[in-house]
């Protein structure tokens, strides 16, 4: 496979010198080549040097990671009020051009404006102005990337959404919330004991997760903006694998209170759990369908772990995976058309994608330790944990497997990612 790596750190070093030494290294590695990438020029925004964030580089990295764009730098600063000279831009083989400006306001905020041009039809595709404090400049960049993405692909962009993940440094386990590109990470929880299976609530305000701080697995719900958290499930035995219902009112969880790992549904406010599955073996890793009517889960009832489906009120169970003897960690796209999961193939653990209409299964990655996939809210990317050159890493891949990107950020152990929902603007 042709492979190229875009190291923005190098570019930035040249452009900005030492002006922003306090910033973490900003590096996006992208491999693969898509078939239908839209070539787009990202011009330097006029006055961009006044902002402490490299807004156009963040936009370009977002669009590249999506797999649907191939960005380039015309190398000229064009603001949003200037009609570009299309005759010269044509020669650069781009279909779109992003222009804009950054102005520092007297109160310390920044006014960021952009305008997108269709360089094939020489047409103004519109723009917007954002006023933001410094901590929200990355969000502005992601919002602009979202709007460019939507204007040119027709699909909603996911760059301004958030992800969560876990890191471990010796005996310090941390739960993080970051931008969708892995940057701007903020610690939500620090614990001397393991944390696993964080899962975003549908409104994007809360995380459910499993913490071992009480010397057993207990499910918590944690409001990330206030830091307030509550125990959702601490029954006798183990409590794990929380999965939110689409309306956010209840969660499917795995409890062992009645013997064996079985799936229950519990109100998000707590209370008595209602048992959904009935087997003598393992039933775990539930995930709701987008309409809430059914639950996909993992069971060893057939002798090896496979993915099954059951109505969320309980009832007849239907087997979904048949190939291989170890299929786990199901996750569904928001349109309900795709099932991503992990399959053991030989000694490898691989991310697979099943088209739920045709049952066709494809392999998406070239890595061998894939874990815990979750879809972007627009269903166009999958986030997963894996190992790259022996080190844990978070990656995204397009659904055709052609474009994958390693998220930057934490360098040592990083795992258990979960992609959050669209946020209400």
């Amino acid at each position: 496979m042709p492979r190229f790596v875009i190291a923005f750190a190098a570019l930035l070093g040249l452009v900005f010198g030492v002006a922003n030494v306090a910033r973490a290294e900003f590096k996006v590695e992208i491999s693969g080549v898509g078939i239908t990438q839209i070539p787009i020029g990202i011009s330097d925004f006029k006055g961009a040097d006044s902002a402490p964030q490299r807004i156009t580089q963040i936009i370009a990295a977002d669009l590249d990671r999506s797999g649907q764009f191939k960005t380039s730098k015309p190398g000229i600063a064009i603001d949003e009020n200037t009609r570009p000279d299309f005759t010269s831009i044509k020669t650069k083989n781009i279909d779109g051009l992003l222009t804009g400006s950054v102005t520092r306001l007297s109160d310390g905020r920044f006014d960021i404006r952009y305008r997108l041009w269709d360089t094939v039809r020489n047409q103004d595709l519109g723009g917007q102005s954002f006023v933001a404090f410094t901590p929200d400049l990355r969000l502005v960049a992601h919002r602009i990337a979202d709007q460019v993405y939507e204007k040119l692909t027709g699909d909603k962009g996911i760059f301004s959404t958030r992800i969560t993940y876990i890191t471990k440094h010796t005996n310090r386990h941390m739960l993080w919330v970051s931008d969708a590109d892995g940057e701007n990470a903020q610690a939500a929880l620090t614990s001397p004991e393991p944390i696993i299976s964080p899962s975003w609530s549908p409104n994007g305000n809360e995380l459910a997760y499993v913490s071992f701080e009480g010397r057993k697995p207990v499910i918590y719900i944690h409001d990330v903006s206030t830091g307030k958290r509550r125990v959702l499930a601490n029954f006798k035995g183990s409590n794990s694998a929380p999965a939110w219902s689409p309306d956010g009112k209840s969660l499917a969880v795995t409890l062992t209170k009645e013997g064996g790992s079985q799936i229950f549904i519990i109100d998000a406010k707590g209370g008595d759990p209602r048992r959904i599955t009935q087997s003598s073996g393992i039933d775990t890793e539930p995930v709701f369908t987008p309409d809430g009517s059914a639950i996909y889960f993992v069971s060893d009832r057939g002798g090896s772990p496979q993915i099954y489906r059951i109505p969320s009120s309980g009832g007849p169970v239907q087997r979904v995976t048949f190939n291989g003897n170890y299929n786990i960690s199901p996750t569904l796209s928001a349109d309900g058309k795709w099932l991503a999961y992990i399959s053991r193939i030989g000694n490898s653990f691989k991310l697979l994608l099943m088209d739920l209409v045709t049952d066709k299964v494809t392999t998406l990655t070239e890595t061998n330790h894939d874990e815990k996939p979750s879809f972007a809210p627009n269903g166009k990317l999958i986030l997963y944990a894996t190992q790259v050159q022996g080190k844990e890493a978070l990656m995204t891949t397009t659904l055709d497997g052609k474009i994958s990107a390693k998220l930057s950020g934490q360098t040592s152990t990083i795992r258990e990612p979960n992609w959050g929902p669209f946020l209400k603007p």
Partner: protein
Amino acid sequence: MNKTFISLLLALLLTACASGVKLNEVPVVDKKASSVSNGASSSGLSDINPSASSSSQQVQQPKSTVEPVNSLANENAPAGPANIEKIVYFDYDSFIIKPEFQSTIEAHAQYLKSNSRAKISLEGHTDERGGREYNLALGQKRADAVRQSLTLLGVGTSQIETVSFGEEKPAVQGADESAFAKNRRAEFFYK
């Protein structure tokens, strides 16, 4: 977070909501590629109004306000019988208690029966191969297997809780079979 700051943010947000104008909703008058002035006064471009801040979108998100929490674990001092092994090891993908551990289990059963107020947590573990949640369920099976042996020997179920740590608390680090073998285990933890 500072209350004044929050109020300020809310105020800004409300202002923005009240008058947010999408620039691309303004019709483009002139699409000719001629006579573009290079200054602030645009000719024929859709309007991005520089002066009225009310036409801008105020950017506020909960993203800037993740409140960090520190959790403290409760490491109790180990209790229970002295001079008895507190670990049982398992074969790969197995929940069968091997004969060499039967005497260990009998010793714990004896202790629990003669100390009816003693409570034990049986903690199942796996090696690192496989998914974390599925390994949690596998570790639970190991703890449950030890519980079954104890109850067959007459220990009351109310004295026993079975929990799993899956692959999260390996006894030894390493990715070879000798490390895996030491990590596939169930531990007796007296509360």
